[in-house]
C-alpha cells in the first residue's frame, strides 16, 4: 500500500514529520517497507535556463551551453540534444546527482577538451514517459526556483506500507490515518458522508440471474448512471497523487476510480454505458465463456466465477477486474458506476485460477467495509461530477446490505493476563473508541463494544486485547522473567545429542556432513527403493524434486558427483536425515560414502583407495559409540540390491538389521555416471540400541595374560569373519580374539591368522589350562572347515 504523505495529511492533522510517522506506523503493526523522499532523489537536480548555446569547436553534433539557475549561478554544459537552444528552461543534473533511470552517479567530465559541469536531462533519464527525444522542455513561464520534485509531480514523500492480511481497512489512506490518530499520532479528520442529488431515474435493467446463489457471492451491489461526462487527461494533482500510489495515469475516470479506492478503500468500477448491450445480469460464467480483461488478456472462465454480463458477453469479473469491451475512452460520455460487496473467497479463487492480481482483488480478499456500497458510490459520484461534469441518476441497488452488526465484550482481567502486566482500563477503552468501537454496556470488570463495519477482523476478546496493546505500543510492556523449572531427563534431547556426537565422530574420521532436500528425482530414488513404495509429490517444484527420498544415497551421490566435477579426486561425505516411504513412514538414517583415496598423496605412505573395510570401520565406530557389544554383532553377506552382491554386508545386532556397507553395484555407477569405485555405509539409527552400561571393573591384583596365535587354512570362499564371535563363546577365559592375517595361500585356499588372549581374574593361568582352551579353538575352527597349519 503506497501513498504520499500529503495525501495522508488530508485525513490526519499532525505535527510529525515523515520519519516520525513511519516509526509510528511500524510500531502499530503497519510496517513501513520503504520511504521515497523526492528531496533525496532530486538532491542534485535544479531548474535552469539556457543562456547561451554555441557549436562545440571540436565536434559538429555537440553544443557548448551556458545555463543559469534561479540565483544567477552559471554552469557550462556540453550537450548533444538538438532542442538545446537559448531561452529553453529545462532540468539540470549536477555532479553527484544519481540518474533515476540508470542509478549512475553523474561526474564532471571533459568532452572533447571542454569541461561539462553537469547534464541536461532527457525524459528517459528521469524515468518519465511522454515527450520523446531531446532534453526536457519546461513551460516558458515556469519559475526557476520551483523544486524539481514538484515539477515532476512528486508532491511529497511516499510511504510504502506492508498491510497484514487481517487489516483490509488499512488498504486505504483514510484507514491508516484513523489508526495513526488512535495511536496518538495526530487528529483524525473525519469526512462527512456525501449524498449526491439525482437528476433522473435509473434507466437500466440490472438483476441477479440466480438470486439464491448470486446473493451469496454478491450480496449487495449499488449502481448509478452518470450522463454527459468528459473523460480527458487527468489534472496534475490527480496524476501525481495516483503516481505516488503506484498507478499510471490512464484517463480521468479510471484515475478517479483508483484514487477513490486508495483514498477510501472502496473499489468501484466504471463501465462505458454506450458499449453495454441491453440488460445487465449478475451471473456465473458459462462453461468455457471467454472474457477479455481491461489489459487485453483473454481468459477462459469457469462456472463458479461471478460476472456482470450484458446480452452479448461478460463485462466484468466482479471484484477482480473489468473488461476491455466496456472500458472508458476519450469518447465516453455516459457511464455506469458499480460499487459492490463480493465474497472474499470467491474473489480470491477467481483471481488465483486466472492468475489475475489487481488492487481491487487485494481489497476484496482482505475484506472491505460491508456497509460501504452506497456511501462508496456517492463518494466516487461526487468526484466524477466535480472533475468530469455530467449528471447522476438515482441509485439502483441489487441485493441488500448484510447485517454485520456485532458486539464483543472485553474483560479487564483478560487484558491484564494476556499482557502479563497491569494495563490502565479507562485508557484502554478510550483507545478502542478512537478506532471507532462504541461502548454499549460496561461495569467495573468488563465492557461491551459494538464493532464498526470496516473492522470485520475484530470478533473475539483477544482481538480487542491486541488492539489495545498494539496502540499502547508493545514496547511499553515490561519484560517479566518466567519461572525456570528444572526438567527431568529428556530422552529425545539426549538422543539428539548422541546423534550430534556421532556426526562429530564421523567428521573426526574424515567425513563431512551435508544436508540435502527431502525430495529427489524419481529415477534416482527408485533404484534404492527395494520393497518400499515411493511417496510422490502431487505438485513438485520440478520433476528433479518429485518424490520423497526413500534413501539418503542418491543425494549423496549427486553431491559427490558435483565435488568430482569441481576437480576433487577424493570425496567422503555423510548425511543424517529422514527417509520416507510406504504410507508416510518416516525413518531416521545415517549414510556416508567414500570415493578415492583415504589420505591425500603424501611422502610417508603409498596412497590407498577407500575400500569396504574403511566404511565398515565407519559403521563400527558408530556401533562402538553406542556401546553396542561387538559380540552380538554379526555381518552377513545380504545387503540390498544396490550393493555389489559379493562385496557388501548387512550388520545384524541379534536378529535386527541395523546397517549395511559395501561397494555400490556397477548399475548405480552407470546411472549416476561414475567411473570411480564407490563405497558406502548406512546406519538405521532408529534400530540402534543405546547402552549406557560399562564393563564391570574388578578391583584387585592383575594376573598375566597368555597369548596364543593360530594359523588355519580354509577354502578361499569361506566366510570366517563371524567366527570371532563364536570363539568368544568357547571359553570364559578368552578375553580377546583378533584376526591378524588373511591371505590367499593358493588359488583355492586362504590362510587365516587368529590371535587369542586368555586371562583369569583370580589366578595366573597354567600352561595346561591354556592348552585346553587352545584345543577348543582348534576343534571349533576345524568344525567350520579349517585346517591347522603346521609350523
Amino acid at each position: 500500500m503506497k501513498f504520499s504523505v500529503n495525501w495522508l495529511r488530508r485525513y490526519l492533522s499532525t505535527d510529525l514529520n515523515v520519519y516520525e510517522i513511519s516509526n509510528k506506523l511500524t510500531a502499530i503493526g503497519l510496517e513501513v517497507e520503504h520511504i521515497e523522499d523526492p528531496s533525496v532523489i532530486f538532491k542534485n537536480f535544479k531548474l535552469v535556463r539556457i543562456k547561451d548555446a554555441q557549436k562545440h569547436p571540436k565536434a559538429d553534433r555537440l553544443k557548448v551551453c551556458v545555463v543559469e539557475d534561479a540565483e544567477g549561478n552559471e554552469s557550462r554544459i556540453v550537450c548533444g540534444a538538438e532542442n538545446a537552444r537559448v531561452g529553453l528552461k529545462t532540468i539540470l543534473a549536477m555532479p553527484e546527482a544519481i540518474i533515476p533511470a540508470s542509478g549512475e552517479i553523474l561526474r564532471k567530465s571533459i568532452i572533447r577538451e571542454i569541461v561539462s559541469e553537469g547534464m541536461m536531462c532527457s525524459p528517459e533519464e528521469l524515468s518519465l514517459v511522454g515527450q520523446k527525444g531531446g532534453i526536457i522542455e519546461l513551460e516558458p513561464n515556469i519559475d526557476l526556483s520551483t523544486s524539481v520534485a514538484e515539477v515532476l509531480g512528486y508532491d511529497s514523500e511516499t510511504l510504502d506500507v506492508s498491510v497484514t492480511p487481517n487489516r483490509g481497512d488499512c488498504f486505504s489512506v483514510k484507514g491508516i490515518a484513523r489508526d495513526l490518530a488512535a495511536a496518538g499520532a495526530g487528529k483524525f479528520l473525519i469526512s462527512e458522508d456525501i449524498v449526491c442529488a439525482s437528476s433522473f431515474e435509473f434507466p437500466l435493467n440490472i438483476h441477479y440471474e440466480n438470486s439464491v446463489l448470486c446473493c451469496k457471492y454478491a450480496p449487495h451491489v449499488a449502481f448509478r448512471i452518470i450522463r454527459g461526462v468528459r473523460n480527458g487527461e487527468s489534472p496534475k494533482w490527480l496524476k501525481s497523487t495516483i503516481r505516488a500510489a503506484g498507478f499510471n495515469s490512464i484517463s480521468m475516470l479510471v484515475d478517479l476510480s483508483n484514487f477513490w479506492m486508495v483514498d477510501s478503500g472502496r473499489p468501484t468500477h466504471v463501465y462505458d454505458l454506450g458499449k453495454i448491450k441491453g440488460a445487465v445480469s449478475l451471473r456465473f460464467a458459462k462453461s468455457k465463456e471467454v472474457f477479455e480483461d481491461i489489459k487485453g488478456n483473454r481468459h477462459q472462465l469457469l462456472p463458479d466465477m461471478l460476472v456482470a454480463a450484458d446480452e452479448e458477453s461478460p463485462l466484468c469479473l466482479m471484484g477482480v477486474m473489468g473488461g476491455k469491451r466496456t472500458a472508458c475512452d476519450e469518447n465516453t460520455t455516459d457511464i455506469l458506476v458499480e460499487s459492490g460487496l463480493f465474497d472474499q473467497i470467491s474473489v480470491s479463487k477467481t483471481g488465483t485460477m486466472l492468475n489475475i492480481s489487481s488492487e481491487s482483488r487485494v481489497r476484496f480478499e482482505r475484506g472491505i467495509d460491508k456497509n460501504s456500497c452506497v456511501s462508496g458510490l456517492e463518494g466516487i459520484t461526487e468526484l466524477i461530477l466535480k472533475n468530469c461534469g455530467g449528471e447522476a441518476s438515482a441509485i439502483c441497488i441489487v441485493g441488500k446490505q448484510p447485517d454485520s452488526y456485532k458486539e464483543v465484550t472485553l474483560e479487564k482481567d483478560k487484558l491484564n493476563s494476556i499482557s502479563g502486566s497491569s494495563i490502565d482500563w479507562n485508557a484502554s477503552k478510550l483507545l478502542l473508541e478512537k478506532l471507532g468501537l462504541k461502548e454499549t454496556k460496561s461495569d467495573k470488570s468488563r465492557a461491551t463494544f459494538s464493532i464498526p463495519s470496516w473492522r470485520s477482523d475484530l470478533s473475539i476478546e483477544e482481538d480487542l486485547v491486541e488492539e489495545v496493546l498494539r496502540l499502547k505500543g508493545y514496547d511499553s510492556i515490561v519484560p517479566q522473567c518466567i519461572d525456570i523449572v528444572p526438567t527431568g531427563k529428556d530422552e529425545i534431547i539426549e538422543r539428539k545429542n548422541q546423534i550430534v556426537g556421532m556426526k562429530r565422530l564421523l567428521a573426526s574420521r574424515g567425513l563431512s556432513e551435508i544436508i540435502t532436500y527431502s525430495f529427489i528425482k524419481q529415477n534416482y530414488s527408485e533404484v534404492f527403493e527395494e520393497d518400499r513404495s515411493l511417496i510422490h509429490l502431487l505438485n513438485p517444484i520440478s520433476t528433479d524434486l518429485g518424490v520423497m527420498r526413500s534413501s539418503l544415497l542418491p543425494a549423496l551421490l549427486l553431491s559427490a558427483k558435483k565435488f568430482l566435477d569441481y576437480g576433487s579426486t577424493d570425496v567422503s561425505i555423510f548425511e543424517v536425515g529422514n527417509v520416507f516411504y510406504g504410507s508416510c513412514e518416516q525413518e531416521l538414517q545415517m549414510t556416508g560414502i567414500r570415493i578415492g583415496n583415504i589420505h591425500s598423496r603424501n611422502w610417508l605412505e603409498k596412497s590407498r583407495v577407500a575400500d569396504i573395510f574403511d566404511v565398515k570401520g565407519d559403521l563400527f565406530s558408530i556401533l562402538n559409540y553406542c556401546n553396542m557389544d561387538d559380540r552380538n554383532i554379526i555381518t552377513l553377506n545380504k545387503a540390498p540390491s544396490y550393493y555389489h552382491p559379493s562385496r557388501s554386508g548387512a550388520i545384524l545386532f541379534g536378529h535386527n538389521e541395523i546397517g549395511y556397507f559395501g561397494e555400490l553395484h556397477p548399475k548405480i555407477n552407470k546411472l549416476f555416471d561414475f567411473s570411480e569405485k564407490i563405497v558406502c555405509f548406512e546406519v538405521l539409527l532408529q534400530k540402534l540400541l543405546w547402552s549406557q552400561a560399562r564393563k564391570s571393573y574388578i578391583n584387585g591384583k592383575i594376573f598375566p595374560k597368555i597369548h596364543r596365535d593360530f594359523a588355519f587354512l580354509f577354502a578361499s570362499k569361506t566366510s570366517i569373519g563371524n567366527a570371532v564371535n563364536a570363539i568368544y563363546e568357547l571359553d570364559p577365559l578368552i578375553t580377546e580374539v583378533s584376526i591378524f592375517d588373511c591371505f590367499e595361500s593358493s588359488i583355492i585356499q586362504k590362510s587365516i591368522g587368529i590371535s587369542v588372549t586368555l586371562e583369569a581374574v583370580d589366578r595366573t593361568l597354567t600352561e595346561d589350562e591354556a592348552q585346553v582352551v587352545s584345543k577348543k579353538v582348534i576343534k571349533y575352527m576345524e568344525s567350520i572347515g579349517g585346517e591347522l597349519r603346521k609350523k
Partner: protein
Amino acid sequence: MTELEKLQASCFLEIGGCDNLKKLDALKNSIFGKGGKIVELMKELRNLNNEQKRKLGSEINLLKSGILGKLNSKFHELEMKELEQKLLSEFVDVALPPRPEHCGKIHPLTKVEEEVVDILSSYGFVFADGPDIEGEHLNFTALNMPNHHPARTMHDTFYVHRPADDNGRKLLRTHTSPVQIRAMLAHKPPLRVFSIGRVYRSDYDATHTPMFSQIEGLIVEKNVGFSHLKWILADFLKKFFEVKDLKMRFRPSFFPFTEPSAEVDINYKVEGGKIIFGEGEEWLEICGCGIVHPVVLGHGKVDAGRYQGLAFGFGLERLASLKYGIPDLRGYFEADERWIDTFGFSHAIR
C-alpha cells in the same frame, strides 16, 4: 717415584690415550687380565713377609681401584661419544610435512541446532517431535487457518500422493507449528516444549528454498503473558548471539494461530563487512511470536479459560546466517565442497 707410582702413571697415560671402546677393552685386559700387569705385581707378594705383604697388598689395591675408576670414566666418555656419533648419523629432515590427518566438517545447521537446544533446555523446555509429512488438519485447520486460506493452495504447499485420513489430505508440513497441537494433545498443561525440524514451501529463488528449518517454542501455563514472552525472547537472543545487550523491537503483526501477534526485530550495525548485534540503530527481523489463539488451544484440548499459551518461531538458517555470516540460503542444501569447507565447523569445536 716408586714402581707402583710408575705403573699407575703409565696406565693412566695409556687409558687417556685410548680413542675407542675396543682399544679400551684390550687395555683393560692387559692390565687386569691373565698375565696382566696387576697379576704380575701380585706374583711378587709371594716372596714377601707378612707385614710387607700387607703393606704392598694394600698399595696394590689402592692402585687397582684408581686404575678401575679411570677406566670406568673413560668407558663412559667413549660410550657417550659413540652414541652421539650414532645419533648424528640418524638424520631426519624434520622440516618435512607431518603424516596427513583428514578431518571432515560438521554442517553449520547441526552446530546452531545444538546451541539452540542448549539454551532452550536451560529454561525447562523439553523436545517435542512431529513428522515431516503431516495432515491438513494439524498443519492448517487446528492452527486456525480455515479451508480457504491462501497458504493451503497447491501453489504454496506440497501435497503428497497418499490418501487423506482423519487428519485430512497429506502434505509436507509448512511450519513446525503442528507440533504445538501434537504436544498439547499428548500432555496436559502446564507445558513447556520446543521443536526443531524441516518444513517445506513451494518457493524457490535467491532468498527461498523449498525446504528450510524452523524452531518452535510453546509454553502453556497459568500465569504467562506477553511480558513473559518478551523476557524469554530477549534472554534467548542475548545468549544465542553472545551479546550483553540487545535492543529489541516488538512490532504488531498477524498470524492466524496467535492473537496478539508480533514480529521481533533486533538492532545491529555493520562494521568492516560484519554484522554486529546489540549495537547500532538498524533493525533486522528475527522472529515471529504471540499469545496462542484460543481456537488453537481448543484444538489442543486445552481449557482456554484456565491456561494461556505463548508461542514463538525462528528460522534456523536465518539464525545461522546471522551469527556466522553465511550469505546464500541455497548453500545450506546444495552441498558445495567449498561451502562446507568455509562454513562447516571442526568436530572438535563445541
